[in-house]
Structures are given as structure tokens and as C-alpha cells.
């Protein structure tokens, strides 16, 4: 099956800065993919190129089987309202009306519900909105467009926790009813952890990790108990984030655990806890949680 988004050797260079470095990636249909990474990792640039708002320096981009560049038939099936989106000098209701003209699957009903839920002032000029409200407006357009390729760039920027949860709930409900290819870019991994089916981690313009979220979640576990038992349990296997207090040790074991492992852990009175997606991804990116050698990091990425 042809992937919805297919990138091959994608590179974007800005003078001496390499924003995207030889990215090859396929994003399948009907899945929620998290495009994760720190600020400046290249997430927005990648999305802009997929939506043909920016041009690639080199490489190939295919969306829904064709190049999106100047391709009206493909572009009307993509929506990307960015965190730093520039809006014309119009009111909120006008911005939504404009969006409704260009998307064949636009849901006015959903837009109205989301506007009411977000308490967006329909008669206020977009320029007078707070950052959070502007994000909410972008999210309303992104959801109500029901475009086959729905791209959200930092959809939590400026939103309070209630609004973030509300967006997640709405996205999940509408996605369940109208499955489509959704890509969310964010550096707030915890906020999206429960939504994601696939994860793509970018760092300095390169893909550090691209895998199913469940696969990543199951790729490591925290083992805690007496130091002796823990050391025996993890011996010869990749580990990271080791913490010891007196005779107790806690360590992340970067390996899939099978039933025999679990039985062995129970027998040795070791506790096994899942590691959050946030921790796993920060580790994969070589962030602060990472305290391992390159070899053990490789184990997590695999």
C-alpha cells in the first residue's frame, strides 16, 4: 500500500544551517503520528514541506501518491495551521468561514461545537486573540477541515491543561469517527503520549527514532529492588538511568521482557514498572535522562 506521506532523502538547508538532513520516512494512512523533538529539531520545517508551504533543498516528497508542490488536487486534502500562523486581518468567524470554502469535508457543526467549547469569541479580530486562543482557532480549523492529511504544529502552545485535554478528547473522538492521517508536532510528549500510534523523533534535522508507540513503550522497564537482585536480573543487558540508595537500586532495563523475565522478577521480589514515553524518548534523543553508553542507547532505539 502506498504510504500517505513518503519522504525520501529530504534535506532543507538555510545558508549554513541544516534544518532537515536526509530524512526518509513513510507515514501510513489512518494513524496518529507524533512528530516529536526539541524546539529547533526541524518539526515545523518538515510539516511545512509536506504541506508545500516550504520547498525542499533536495529529496523527494510524495503526499497521497503525488508531489504536493503547486498541486491543487493534493493540497486541498491537506491542512496545516501552524503555531506561528499569520492570519489576515479578519474576525474569528471570518477565518472559519474562509476555511470552510476550501475544504470539501468541512464540518460546520464540529467547528461550531469546538468554538463554543474553546470559548473563542467569534466576533473578535484574530489579531486581538491571545496566543492560546490563536492556537485554539488553528486547532478548530485543523479538526473541522477533516482533511485526509491533518497536520497540527504545536497544538498545545499557550493552552491550559483543561483546553489541552479537551483538544485530545475531541481529536480522538473525531478521528475514531473519521479516520485520517494525523500528524502532531510537539515537544510536550506527555500531552500526546496516550494518543499516539506512531512516534517519529527528530533531533537536529535527523530522525532519531521512528516506530510504533506500543513498540517503544514495551522496549524498556524500570527494575527496582535490592541491589544484588537487580544486578543479577539485568546482567549482560543494556541499561540506563541507574539510581542507588543504600542497598536498593533502580535501573531502566532497555529490553523487551518476556513471561520468564516477569516470573523471575517476581521470584526475586523485584518490582517492574513501565517507563513513560517521555522518558524513553528523551533517552533516545540523548537528553538529560540518558546516562548510558552509546551501546545501551542503541538498544532503546532498536
Amino acid at each position: 500500500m502506498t504510504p500517505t506521506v513518503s519522504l525520501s532523502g529530504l534535506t532543507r538547508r538555510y545558508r549554513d544551517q541544516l534544518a532537515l538532513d536526509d530524512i526518509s520516512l513513510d507515514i501510513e494512512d489512518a494513524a496518529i503520528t507524533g512528530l516529536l523533538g526539541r524546539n529547533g529539531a526541524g518539526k515545523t520545517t518538515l510539516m511545512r514541506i509536506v504541506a508545500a508551504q516550504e520547498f525542499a533543498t533536495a529529496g523527494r516528497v510524495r503526499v497521497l501518491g503525488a508531489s504536493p508542490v503547486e498541486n491543487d488536487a493534493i493540497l486541498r486534502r491537506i491542512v496545516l495551521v501552524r503555531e506561528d500562523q499569520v492570519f489576515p486581518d479578519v474576525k474569528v468567524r471570518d477565518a472559519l468561514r474562509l476555511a470552510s470554502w476550501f475544504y470539501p469535508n468541512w464540518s460546520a457543526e464540529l467547528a461550531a461545537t469546538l468554538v463554543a467549547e474553546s470559548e473563542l469569541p467569534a466576533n473578535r479580530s484574530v489579531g486581538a486573540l491571545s496566543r492560546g486562543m490563536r492556537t485554539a482557532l488553528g486547532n478548530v480549523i485543523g479538526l473541522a477541515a477533516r482533511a485526509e492529511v491533518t497536520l497540527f504544529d504545536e497544538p498545545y502552545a499557550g493552552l491550559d491543561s483543561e483546553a489541552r485535554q479537551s483538544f485530545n478528547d475531541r481529536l480522538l473522538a473525531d478521528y475514531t469517527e473519521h479516520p485520517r492521517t494525523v500528524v502532531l508536532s510537539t515537544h510536550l510528549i506527555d500531552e500526546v503520549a496516550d494518543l499516539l500510534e506512531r512516534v517519529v523523533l527528530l533531533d537536529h534535522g535527523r530522525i532519531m527514532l521512528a516506530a510504533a508507540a506500543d513498540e517503544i513503550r514495551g522496549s524498556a522497564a524500570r527494575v527496582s529492588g535490592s541491589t544484588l537482585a537487580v544486578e543479577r536480573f539485568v546482567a549482560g543487558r543494556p541499561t540506563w538511568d541507574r539510581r542507588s540508595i543504600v542497598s536498593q537500586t533502580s535501573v531502566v532495563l532497555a529490553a523487551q521482557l518476556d513471561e520468564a523475565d516477569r516470573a523471575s522478577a517476581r521470584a526475586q521480589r523485584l518490582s517492574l514498572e513501565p517507563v513513560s514515553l517521555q522518558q524513553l524518548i528523551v533517552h533516545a534523543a540523548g537528553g538529560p535522562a540518558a546516562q548510558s553508553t552509546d551501546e545501551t542507547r542503541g538498544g532503546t532505539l532498536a
Partner: protein
Amino acid sequence: MSTWIKVARYQMVQRFNYVTLPWAALALLFAAQLAVITMLGMHDARLTGLVSIYAVFFIVGVSTVARSLPFGLALGLSRRSYYLGTVLLALTLTALDGLLLAGLQEIERATGGWGLGMFFFRVEYVLDGPWFLTWLTSFVALTLAFVYGLWWGLVYLRWRRMGRRVFLVAQILALLAVGLTADRFAAWPNIGRFFTDLTALGLTGVLAAATAALLVGGYATIRRVAV
């Protein structure tokens, strides 16, 4: 075509810029010229208040892309559709505005310059013929002003300040090159004769050719704009 019409409607959401502003500027200048004539008794003064509507069309052209293009691309428009839709709107508005200007010129002529011998909508040689010629010249010149502004706006969006400077210098250099070439081939007398012999209709033709060239330049630029 339907997408172009949608883009034209999209642009018209900011109808203040496209409709109100040009005519408000023109009305203001008309009132000012009227005041000067009545207060100072300068009945035969041929002031150039009419130029304000062309200036506004240029400014609207410059400013229109900065905010409407990024959102247009966010809504899945191609640069081509955006450009052609925007030009379609400009052509429609300038055709209508040209008609209004021709009508006002007829009224000015019929009332003996608004009863004061005033020249506002009549410009000797350029806009002083029959109504349809005034309409055609106004239509072409207003379109030229808008399209030229649009190209400036696109150059700024693509290359920012440096692009604007280079664009200005390039135009000056192009004019200099034309001048030097004319000089080298001793073509000035012929050029002078060409413009002296040029009728208002001929001038409109020259403006139309320039507009077509600007349209091509703007199109080539928008194809390179990233937002």
C-alpha cells in the same frame, strides 16, 4: 476557475482595503481640491488628486500578500491559484472602478467641472477622451498599479529587505540600461517621436504591455515564496 473565484471571495473578506480605501482616499482628495478651488479661487487649477486612487491600488497590492498568502497556503491553496484568484479580483474591481471613474468624468464634463470649472477626473491627453477610452485607460492603469504593488509585496515576502533593495536597484539599472542603449544607438529622437505621436489609446496599449510583463514577473516570484 472555481478555486480562483473562491480566492477572489477570500480576498474580498478584507473589502475595506479593496473597496472603501481607494474611494475614501479619492473622496478626501476631491474634497481637498474643492476646498482649495473655492477658498483660493483657483478655478483652472489642474491638481492631481486623481492619482490617489492609483497610489492606493499600488499600496493594497503591496500589502495584500503579507497576511493573506500565508493563511491561503495554510488552507491548501497553491501559489498559482492564489495569484490568479487575486489577479481575477483585481481585474474585476479595476474594471468596475474604471467604469465609475468614466461616469464621474462624464458628470464633471457635463456640469462644467462641478460648476466651478474644476478638473479632477479629467487629465489632459491621458484621460480626456470619450467615456469608453477613459474606462479602458483607467482599467489598465489601475491594474498596472495593483500588479506592480503585488510584485513588490511578493519580493519582500520572498527575500525580505535585501530583496526589496535589490529589486529597486535592478529597476533603476534596467532604466539606465535602456537609456544608455538609446544613447548608444542615437535612438532618443525616435523614442521622443514615438511618445509624441502616441495617442491615449496607444499609451493604454503600452501600459497594458507593461502590466502583462509585471504579471509574469509577479507569477515567477510567487512560485518561489515560502511561508
